[in-house]
């Protein structure tokens, strides 16, 4: 059992942070790696990239958006409650290198995944500008943490309620125009990563993205997480989750992420009916 020692609601309760006791994983995990969590006996295995780890305390931190039945179950877990299973660290760690000027772009809960990577890139001596975005001010997460993790933080909201009025891509483009950018790291919704990659391709700036396809075991055994990278099939769980953003077939990924859309709706409705009946 993996006990929750800290819990925080963000984005008006739609995004949840859990700090979880998992000493073996905390000791081993590196930025960019993920864990698989399962709430209870009949739960689904959900992969989430870690937002932070504390090896001394023996804890890992995950941040997720409540989107379906499984994450709704996660939301019900309070401090002192436990996940039945947490497996990891899985996937390859981020390739960290001192390259100079770096832009880290995060959207939605992707900001959580971006956090340890940004911090690590800064620690090894890169000049890191971070751009984070959300639909509106209330949905923004980890602003303070990202400010600390980078040299310069830019914030965007789609509705202009805070920071730059518009998309992260617009701010990124301005920085790219100024020149000298050696690497872009983009983590967020697939359409955002696709838009970022399309732009950086024109500037010929290497771009790394972190993908979150559907998976079961996370150890290369099921092949459910296959993604097409430069025309080749890769397993995100063992070959990724990070890939060259210019080579990813985003349209295929978007379609594959919808594989269980109907079933998920059915399951969530089923869960809500049972919960409401209680």
């Amino acid at each position, binding site marked *: 059992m993996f006990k929750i020692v800290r819990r925080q609601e963000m984005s008006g309760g739609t995004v949840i942070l859990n700090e979880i006791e998992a000493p073996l994983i905390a000791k081993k995990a590196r930025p960019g790696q993920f864990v698989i969590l399962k709430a209870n006996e009949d739960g*689904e*295995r959900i992969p989430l990239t870690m937002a932070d780890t504390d090896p001394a305390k023996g804890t890992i931190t995950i941040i997720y958006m409540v989107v379906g039945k499984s994450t709704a179950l996660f939301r019900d877990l309070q401090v002192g409650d436990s996940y039945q299973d947490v*497996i990891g660290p899985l996937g390859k760690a981020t390739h960290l290198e001192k390259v100079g000027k770096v832009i880290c772009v995060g959207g939605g809960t992707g900001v959580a995944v971006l956090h340890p990577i940004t911090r690590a890139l800064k620690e090894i001596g890169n000049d890191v500008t971070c751009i984070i975005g959300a639909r509106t001010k209330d949905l923004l997460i980890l602003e303070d943490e990202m400010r600390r993790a980078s040299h310069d933080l830019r914030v965007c909201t789609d509705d202009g309620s805070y920071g730059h009025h518009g998309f992260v891509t617009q701010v990124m483009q301005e920085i790219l125009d100024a020149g000298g950018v050696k690497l872009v790291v983009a983590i967020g919704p697939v359409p955002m990563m696709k838009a970022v990659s399309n732009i950086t391709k024109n500037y010929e700036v290497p771009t790394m993205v972190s993908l979150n396809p559907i998976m079961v075991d996370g150890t*290369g*055994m099921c092949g459910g997480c296959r993604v097409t990278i430069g025309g080749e099939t890769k397993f995100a769980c063992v070959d990724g989750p990070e890939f060259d953003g210019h080579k990813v077939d985003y349209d295929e990924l978007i379609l594959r992420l919808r*594989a*269980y859309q109907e079933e998920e709706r059915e*399951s969530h409705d*089923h869960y809500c009916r049972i919960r409401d009946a209680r």
Partner: protein
Amino acid sequence: MADIGEKAQKNPRVPMPEQDPKVRARNFLEVPTGYTMKMAQEEASRCLQCKKPGCVSGCPVGVDIPGFIDLIAQGDMSGAIRNLWRKNSLPAVCGRVCPQEIQCEGQCIVGKKGQPVAIGNLERFCADYEREHGTGELPPKQPATGKKVAVVGSGPSGLTVAGDLIVKGHDVTIFEAFHKPGGVLVYGIPEFRLPKSIVAQEVNFLARLGVKVECNAVVGRTVSLDELFAEGYEAIYVGVGAGLPKFMNLPGENLVGILSANEYLTRANLMKAYQYPDVDTPIPHGKNVVVLGAGNVAMDSARTAMRLGAETVKIVYRRSREEMPARAAEIHHAEEEGIEMCLLTNPTRYLGNDKGRLTGMECLRMELGEPDSSGRRRPIPIKGSEYQIDCDLCIVAVGSGANPLLTSETSDMQLNKWGYIITDPQTGKTTKKGVWAGGDIVTGAATVILAMGAGRQAADSIHNYLTLGW
């Protein structure tokens, strides 16, 4: 011999009672329901008690088959199961999933002129009888040696190693990557062929003997082999299975609705997705399902699809019936349940719609040519024979390769060119000191019993190492 032939024909094997095909094709309950004591004794009496029993030489772990069968005939069920346990720690599993027709039963003299003795059914009966009526008495354990052994993977070979070494007095811990122990026995083999409660009972038996089981431990990620040595383990057995699904590499393979058998069966079995939405893991429900491949995994996938409500399920296989690698019983059961065999048929590409979902596949008809390197006649495409099969779900069951998760993190352990671990065939020793390996990660995808045989061999060698040295 004329005598034996006559006897065999007059005395046919006691048939295994089974659920009616029409009923069982839509439920997940076990298909064969098992012998009664009377049936078992009647079947046991068919055994000729050969002086030089062929059946024993056909068994990869050398079970004393005439011995345990004789004990059944005498009604000594406690003796029969203890006899079996001497060579086979998982009789309830093997009685259900071994390919008996090419092993023990294939060598049975009675089978030369009639039907062989139903050794598998009798083995299963012994194990089930012990589970339902036995005393639960544990086998004797030798005094503790204080030596720690790590077993990586809790499939058939890992369980065998753990069972053998715990009774020899060693301190055994199994590390399992999934959240539940049993390996392929829980994620791969369906409930209707091997109920999960039976596997749980086998694991529980080991736990009662003192074996520790650490789930959610991905060796190679959570902990490395060298870290296990640093923690005080003196010997490590690696039995992680093959575990890398093969695909056909055809155009359209990443359409939604094409799954590896590993994924499909893991969802159905380990994650119990057939109970969705009462459990949380979904599984695609195909109306018209195609399964590529003709081994046991293909049959398991096809029969699972039927049970999940498919209207049609087709096995598509490029060779002919003779070359199908599945157990005879599985093919027979599949056909009884309404699964169609599209033999001498090879898919060439997948077809999809604008939502990226599978709608069908294009296939070519084949004919058999000269034997190939496997000794089987090579299938050759018939020109211009392309045709389409409509399907909304395709399960790819064309085999597995070596999963590199552990081996790629263990640089001082040699692999062959396909990524399987190189071992000494007599002992299971790898090229890394203190590490043994066996099962599918050494041989490539094979059977439960061969993995158990490798485990037995390695356990003997590990015991020698712990008491005498490398």
